[in-house]
């Protein structure tokens, strides 16, 4: 039973379905809405106002269909509205798109000097192993720099060719060992210290020498300390500093303040002992001097040499840093070129 009235309703519905296809934005949606639902001139509104002209027999059916269509139109408009609003918001965000490939706006961050970083790292390793950091004067008495370390007057190590003298009895310390003597003077064993600091030797500056450099030296004196403890301590330190795969090797040498004395090599950090230019194809790199404390030193500080033994070792902070980061000229540490400093 399809009357003319209902047919008109259906054709308006079909028109709506056609028209809504062309709605692309919120403005055309508003036009669509007005065209069909405007209170005064909306096509559907006008049709609904015709209800009183519909024969009473069809009126119920007309009302039902009209309401159904109106509901459909309204919900379709609403869905369209929502869809278009979402698309519009998306477009707004889309307009805010940045060229994220531009470089970041970086703040300037300062860099701690590599020698400070290396010193801190070494200090942290040894304090974790129970050592206490000690320091002392750089302008030092010859007694502490030489005599008390078993380097008597006339010894070649005291030569003015190698040592900066202030006067006959004062020098720029040539190693940080005087701090060890000063510490031992102050306290009885157990002593377990690390002394980092600036030292001076009259070497012309080149890739591996500077007239001033930084050392760290450790001293441990206690009951029952042996050469084996020295080996174990150095092995542990090198594994912590250079990495767990690092091997440590001791070779006999001579220093006035230790006996037995040993040069300390580590397995080459660049080639892992395969042989390269840095280690001169030997697989090993010399890093420090070490040894069992010569008991002659104990007589200077009133230690009982029948009761205590100890070990000492020391290396250059520049060298340890240079080896770890492949720095091929230690003068770089003193040029203060920002292009170098910024890398740490």
């Amino acid at each position, binding site marked *: 039973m399809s009357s003319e009235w209902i047919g008109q309703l259906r054709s308006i519905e079909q028109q709506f379905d056609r028209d809504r296809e062309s709605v692309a934005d919120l403005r055309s949606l508003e036009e669509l809405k007005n065209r069909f639902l405007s209170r005064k001139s909306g096509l559907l509104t006008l049709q609904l106002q015709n209800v009183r002209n519909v024969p009473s027999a069809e009126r119920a059916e007309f009302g039902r269909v009209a309401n159904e269509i109106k509901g459909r139109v309204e919900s379709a408009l609403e869905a369209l509205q929502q869809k278009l609003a979402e698309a519009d918001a998306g477009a707004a965000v889309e307009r805010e798109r940045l060229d994220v490939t531009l470089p970041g706006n970086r703040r300037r961050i300062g860099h701690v*000097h590599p020698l400070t970083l290396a010193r801190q790292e070494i200090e942290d390793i040894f304090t974790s192993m129970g*050592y206490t950091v000690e320091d002392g004067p750089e302008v030092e008495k010859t007694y502490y720099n030489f005599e008390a370390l078993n380097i008597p007057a006339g010894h070649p190590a005291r030569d003015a060719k190698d040592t*900066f003298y202030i006067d006959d009895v004062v020098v720029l310390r040539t190693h940080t060992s005087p701090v060890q003597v000063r510490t031992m003077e102050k306290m009885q064993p157990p002593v377990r210290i690390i002394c980092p600091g600036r030292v001076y030797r009259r070497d012309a500056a080149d890739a591996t020498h500077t007239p001033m450099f930084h050392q760290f030296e450790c001293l441990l004196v206690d009951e029952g300390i*042996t050469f084996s403890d020295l*080996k174990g301590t150095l092995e542990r330190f090198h594994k912590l500093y250079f990495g767990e795969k690092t091997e440590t090797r001791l070779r006999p040498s001579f220093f006035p303040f230790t006996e*037995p004395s040993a040069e300390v090599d580590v397995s080459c950090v660049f080639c892992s002992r395969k042989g390269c230019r840095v280690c001169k194809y030997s697989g090993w790199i010399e890093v420090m001097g070490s040894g*069992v404390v010569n008991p002659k030193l104990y007589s200077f500080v009133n230690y009982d040499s029948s009761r205590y033994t100890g070990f000492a070792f020391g290396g250059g902070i520049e060298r340890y840093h240079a080896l770890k980061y492949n720095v091929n000229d230690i003068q770089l540490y003193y040029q203060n070129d920002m292009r170098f400093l910024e890398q740490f």
Partner: protein
Amino acid sequence: MKISYNWLREFVDIAVDAPMLGQKITHVGLALESIEDVHGDRVLDLDVTTNRPDCLSHLGVAREVRAIFGGTLRRPEFRAKEGSRAASETFSISIADPELCGRYCARYISGVRIGPSPDWLKARLEAVGVRSINNVADITNYVMMELGHPMHAFDADKLRGRQIIVRRAEIDEKLTTLDGVERALNPSILVIADANKPVALAGIMGGGETEITASTTDVLLESAYFNPGSIRKTARTLGLTTEASYRFERGADVEMAAFACDRAAALIQELAGGEILRGMIDVYPGKSKTTSISLRRERIAGVLGAPVADAVVNQIFERLELKPAQTAQGWTVEAPTFRVDLSSEEDLLEEIARHCGFDKFPATLPATRGFGSLLPNERRVRQLRNFLSGAGYSEITTYSFSNEQQEKKFYPDIEPVRLRNPMSEEATILRTSLIPGMLSALQWNLNRGIRNLQMYEMSKVYWNGGERRTLLLAACGNLRLASVHETPREFDFFALKGDIEELLAGFNTPVRLTTDSVPKYYHPGRFARVGHLAMFGELHPAYAEPFKFRQRIYLAEIDVDLLLGSSQSRQVEQIPRYPAVKRDFSLLFDKGTQYATVHRTIADAGIPELIRVEPFDRMESGPFPDNKYSLSISVVYQSPERTLTDVEVESFDRKIIDILEGRLSAQLRK
């Protein structure tokens, strides 16, 4: 010390090739530096430590090699035919100073023919880096390289009075040495003299006049022992080091003197002919006594970390010719005269350790004892470094050396530490401040086109009588660089001041600024100080000029130890629960009224609820009289107890405006 592999094999059997020998010998303490091929031979360059002069010869190194591999040590064998004339009737020798010369052995060889050395001798010397001269001179060098004992050959006919006197030189005596240099002598120098004058520097170098020449027929061969300290001193005084002095100053073997003398005499006879006069002249006032040393067995494990079997110890000592005798406690050995380094128990422990092999001792860690700690202020120093990094400053490290002229510009009143033997005129003293070093570092970078810099150095300065750590900050160029994102901003006085304020606040140190006592090197109108704790400002243009700086340089000097020592402990302030009220005023002030005065005057208004005062705009000119300037200030009121009412806030405003108007003739701008 260069050692020929072939030559070495004359004294000891070596079961390994030269590279392997190099490795083995490195591990007993003679570090291999290099190996080179010389005419089918291999020459090992060994680093012989100063305590081992006995290893400055092939025989000495052979002894160490024998200790490694075992076998027999073969001393050179030779036969010399003595003539019937007695040397002692032909020539006389006396030692005037037995302290400095413990022994003088001599052989007299008559009728030699000086000429070139045979090829084998030349080749040996060349291999170990010695230049060939003539057969007699070469033989003395050969024996030195073989046995380690330096010798000297005189043309005996040139020695006046047919005698040798070993004595100290007299004042004003002179000697022209073999190298053609005339040397002024003095009584600290030991010389070999004939009846008239010095003919050689004892133990160092012979004289030109008595040198062996082509026409020499009679040779006096010297093989002596000189005091190491005396030779060292003379060598240093004269700046003259020779193969002979190198050995004597480390300690020669007094007992080797006679053997070496005979060995050389026999070689001379063999290669240059002649008659060796009967008997060696041997003046030996300093006859050595052998040293006996004891070693307690338990010290081996006690010092080295592991016991070593008696048999191993015995073998090591025997191979090193220490004549060991076992005792109940351990061993007693006799230190041979060639081992000048052996005198105490630890010396023997070292012999055991190096010949057992350092690798044979286990690696252990000492038992834990107590705890370790950093230097007392180190944690706070690291906190300070973190702050400085965050604020953009990079740490530099400069040499402690400086030159006086440079330092005096900045700290003219400090008496510096002067070096007696500086390496250059630029480095004659220790720095008295960090400023010249910093300026040089800035200059280095500026010269390389790195123009925007913030740096610091935290290190020691020195004066005659002390040294202390201090901190210097420096900056120049742009704080923010021009980029696609923003416009550049120059580092200026207030950027520096802000950093100082943050730094001091970070260490909870109150900032009380003054502008008095401006050091000459600061710009007088751009400087401030916080007592003795900090001084900062712009470098005076006159001081920047010598460095050719084209931009303003900012400096801040901070007494770190004072900073770390002065900072007080911090207690947290409660975060307020009630809202704050912010009010802005714009006021006109007389030009010349400093902000500090404004700030202090507002504080004098006595408003407990006033928690912050901040200037936010300043105009030097505008719609107001020329003698005025405009300053906009915001103030913040807040009560910890309640929300402030409008009436209260207005009364606070009134108080502030009243006091500024009353005291500073300020005018509120509408």
